[in-house]
């Protein structure tokens, strides 16, 4: 018989507000095996943990039940507390009376009743618990970074500097990401390329970093410490080893009509191209959709002009399989589609552009070579209107419910830069709120208003009407003056909401990392573990986790790197002891379990058994504990019940069922 202690947490008023906690403790004493029950304000606090430890020692408890928040929150905490008091950590069960009870049931009597039942189920389970010992698994000392933007580059550099090998997988032909498309960066206004390109070069030159550009993650298997990843290196049609990056092929390429991804489609590029001049690697790729050779079989000019003989039309996609101990996701963001916002006339007028498009217009390497001009007629604008919160903070399905965070600052930056370079241009910003928390951020915004005379109007724009003369009529509110504004503008710039890169869903699925309703990757804990995914061994870097600016991204990239380094520094990991075990006396050796095991953890051996006096050699299943992840598929496939899952045994689950239905 177990000696069980039950500890009921108030969680301040989170639980005690809806559940009569002392009643739960009182009822617990009536359960079989329970010799101790108490309730306390915060069981997870040091004092609460001390109470648990004291009870374990005083009453010689063999198992404990903590009625508290979700086991996903504090199971590990209480297991550690029990372990410190000399109890096997797997003799701890959690009854989730917060997320599954007090937070959703407002009626005290009803909630208390349910809490008692959940407590009973946990007690019934712990009565059947057995002490378990964690095994060990090895750690591959190499990290994978998915995404080669500033987040991925920074994470890779930090991991590599700590002495571990890192591979970066980047989908596009060059690393650099969104940051490479920016012109200047707030709040210091240094040129984006000037601070990014040295990092790109450093990453490329680092002997611990290997960069796979124009590549995608195809398949991920394994688990923390021991992932196996298939990387698809898309056919570049150019031999990376031979190409000197001279650029003649791009110059001579007759197909120059493909929209330039780097310039957001505002101008075109050749079919063989590097996205931008500072691309790393400086090796072009052939866009097979646009290439005349691939479309018609004729042409081949690039091959003829290439002195190095690097052009290879026959190149095929290649799959590289590598092993990693840790994976960092740094897949970044894109701006949302604006097709549902017809009131802003984006798509109707070339002079209504997104802020990211304006970055390209302002950039010396952009479609207008850095001259501020209207994309419709190339004339210099005199009136520019910026509209904030386009698709951000939007309750309906046209936009995103969250604040995109960066728009207030980059809009101030754009306004300021335009006023600085073109003092004769009037700049008006329509805003709902101006949000500038951050070091030197509000000062920056105020400078735009006070020093540069940017006209900030509290109010949204209701519609933008393209006029026949090419001007844009902007109808907005000025809520402070309580008037409706009709304003003629030459250009309208939309601070478009950002969203996670659409590929992230596919990647998250491969990694079995969870994702929220907005496609941002979920952190293990919103406050305390913000750079880790709940899936062990997966770390989050940059905007894939939530909107953030460059300094925050770099900071998080470093944090993710440290977490990954912390993992890679270990030689061995303790494995989950909740694995399947076969009872040799019951096993038929039928191979059914082997067929459903996703990890190949089950093999068969001829074993000498002594079945109640009958000695014979039998073919029986053997589970490799390092490979078994404890899913339990085999336990149900097994008709004789020989296969059982430690920590979630058949009898334990049935005891829970019985307790709930009692």
């Amino acid at each position, binding site marked *: 018989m177990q000696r069980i202690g039950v500890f009921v947490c108030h969680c301040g008023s989170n639980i005690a507000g809806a559940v009569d906690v002392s009643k739960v403790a009182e009822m617990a004493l009536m359960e079989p095996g329970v010799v101790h029950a108490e309730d306390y304000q915060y069981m997870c606090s040091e004092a609460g943990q001390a109470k648990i430890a004291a009870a374990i020692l005083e009453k010689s408890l063999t198992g404990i039940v903590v009625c508290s928040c979700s086991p996903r929150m504090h199971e590990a905490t209480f297991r550690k507390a029990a372990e410190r008091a000399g109890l096997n950590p797997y003799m701890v069960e959690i009854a989730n009376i917060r997320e599954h009870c007090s937070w959703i049931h407002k009626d005290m009597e009803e909630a208390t009743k349910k809490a008692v039942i959940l407590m009973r189920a946990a007690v019934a389970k712990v009565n059947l618990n057995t002490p378990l010992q964690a095994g060990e698994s090895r750690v591959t000392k190499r990290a994978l970074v998915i995404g080669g933007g500033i987040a991925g580059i920074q994470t890779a550099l930090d991991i590599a500097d700590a002495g571990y090998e890192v591979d970066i997988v980047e989908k596009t032909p060059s690393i650099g990401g969104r940051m490479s498309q920016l012109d200047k960066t707030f709040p210091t206004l240094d040129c984006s390329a000037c601070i990014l390109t040295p990092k790109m070069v450093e990453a490329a030159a680092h002997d611990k970093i290997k960069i796979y550009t124009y590549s995608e993650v195809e398949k991920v298997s394994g688990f923390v410490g021991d992932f196996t990843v298939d990387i698809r290196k898309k056919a570049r049609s150019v031999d990376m080893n031979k190409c000197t990056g001279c650029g003649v092929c791009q110059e001579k390429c007759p197909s120059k009509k493909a929209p330039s991804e780097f310039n957001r489609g505002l101008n075109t590029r050749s079919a063989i191209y590097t996205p931008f001049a500072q691309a790393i690697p400086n090796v072009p790729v052939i866009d097979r959709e646009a290439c005349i050779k691939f479309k018609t079989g004729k042409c081949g000019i690039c091959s003829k002009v290439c002195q190095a003989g690097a052009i290879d039309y026959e190149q095929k996609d290649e799959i590289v399989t590598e092993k990693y101990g840790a994976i960092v996701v740094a897949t970044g963001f894109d701006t949302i589609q604006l097709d549902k916002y017809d009131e802003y006339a984006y798509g109707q007028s070339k002079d209504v552009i997104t802020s990211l498009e304006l970055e390209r217009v302002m950039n010396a390497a952009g479609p207008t070579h850095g001259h501020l001009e209207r994309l419709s007629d190339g004339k210099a604008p005199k009136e520019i209107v910026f509209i904030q919160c386009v698709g951000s903070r939007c309750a309906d399905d046209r936009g995103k419910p969250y604040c995109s965070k960066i728009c207030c600052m980059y809009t101030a930056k754009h306004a300021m830069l335009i006023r600085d370079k073109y003092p004769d241009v009037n700049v008006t910003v329509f805003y709902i709120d101006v949000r500038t928390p951050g070091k030197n951020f509000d000062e920056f915004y105020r400078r735009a208003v006070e020093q540069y005379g940017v006209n900030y109007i509290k109010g949204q724009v209701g519609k933008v009407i393209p006029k026949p003369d090419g001007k844009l009529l902007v109808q907005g509110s000025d809520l402070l003056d309580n008037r409706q504004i009709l304003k003629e503008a030459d250009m309208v710039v939309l601070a478009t909401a950002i969203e996670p890169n659409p590929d992230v869903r596919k990647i998250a699925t491969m990694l079995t990392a969870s994702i929220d309703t907005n496609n941002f990757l979920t952190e293990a804990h919103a406050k305390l573990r913000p750079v880790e995914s709940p899936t062990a061994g997966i770390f989050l870097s940059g905007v894939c986790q939530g909107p953030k600016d460059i300094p925050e991204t770099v900071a998080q990239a470093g944090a993710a790197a440290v977490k990954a380094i912390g993992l890679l520094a270990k030689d061995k990991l303790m494995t989950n002891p909740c694995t399947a075990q076969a009872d040799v006396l019951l096993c*038929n050796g039928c191979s059914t379990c082997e067929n459903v095991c996703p990890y190949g953890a089950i093999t*068969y051996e001829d074993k000498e058994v002594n079945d109640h006096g009958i000695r014979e050699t039998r073919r029986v299943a053997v589970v490799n504990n390092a490979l078994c992840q404890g899913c339990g598929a085999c336990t149900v496939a097994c008709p004789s019940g020989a296969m059982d899952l430690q920590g979630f045994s058949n009898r334990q689950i*049935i005891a829970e069922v019985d307790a709930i239905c009692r």
Partner: protein
Amino acid sequence: MQELINRAKELLADGTVARVLGYKAGDLPYNPEPAYFESAEELKDFVYNGFCGANLSKYMIEASKLEGKTMVFLKPCDTYSFNQLLKEHRVDRDKAYIVGVGCKGKLDIEKVKKQGIKGIQSIKGADITDDAQILTIQTIYGEKTCSYGDAMLERCHVCKGKEHRIFDEQIGESKETKDAERFAEVERIEAMSPEEKFAYFRSELSKCIRCNACRNACPACSCRKCVFDSNKFDSSQKANVDSFEEKMFHIIRAFHVAGRCTDCGECSRVCPQGIPLHLFNRKFIKDIDELYGEYQAGADTDSTAPLTDYTFEDAEPSIVGKRG
């Protein structure tokens, strides 16, 4: 029959096999029972006739543990069971010398009795060499006749085919017996209202006395220890205590053999209460065929079983309510 005995004697004599697994006469003319024969002498008790319906495959699990080869007589449908056991590593192919015996349909004494034929003394026309048209039955009330087809087991009317799936040699002629749709009875039940279904199965299952004959005869139910006998699920039951346990036992039994059951019909054949237990297994077979593609357990030894397989597009469980 003599051909089988002769062959058995030969193989025993030349040492190819150490024993013969066949049938010997029982206490009545219609209940031969499976038996081992280890010498020509013992073979004098050997019988083989239309009442030898028992599926000998399951006996091969134990026979595989014995020294030397065992000669076994398998009907076409029994070879599916043998194949399935082979696939599950329960029998040793090298320990078996399989004689595929021709089949003209096996007989069900209950069907004969249902025709009002009582006090049976002897039956003629049931040997494998007979042409299987008419049974002549000597009773204490005089001689009666009965058509062979009317006396056949249910399973023979929906026969999977007379081809042996695995054998070392074949003896005897077969005759096609299939004259009914395999799933007709399942479909009839499916068409019932929930109340009718419930009433039907309640009346059938309430007859169950938990003698475990179905379990013992079933070649798929060959666990060393059944979950209903072990404490693994806190589910050990020796007898049905209430109406629920009848259902629990039969549903779980059917579920455990789903995708493995060859539809050999032994469960229904041996049930002393005459419960049509094969209707559970056949329901699963029908569902599997409809939802995951045609699958015949035991047809081969290397295909993936439906419950250890999947596709991304598999039907959702909610299809159960939608199929009407």
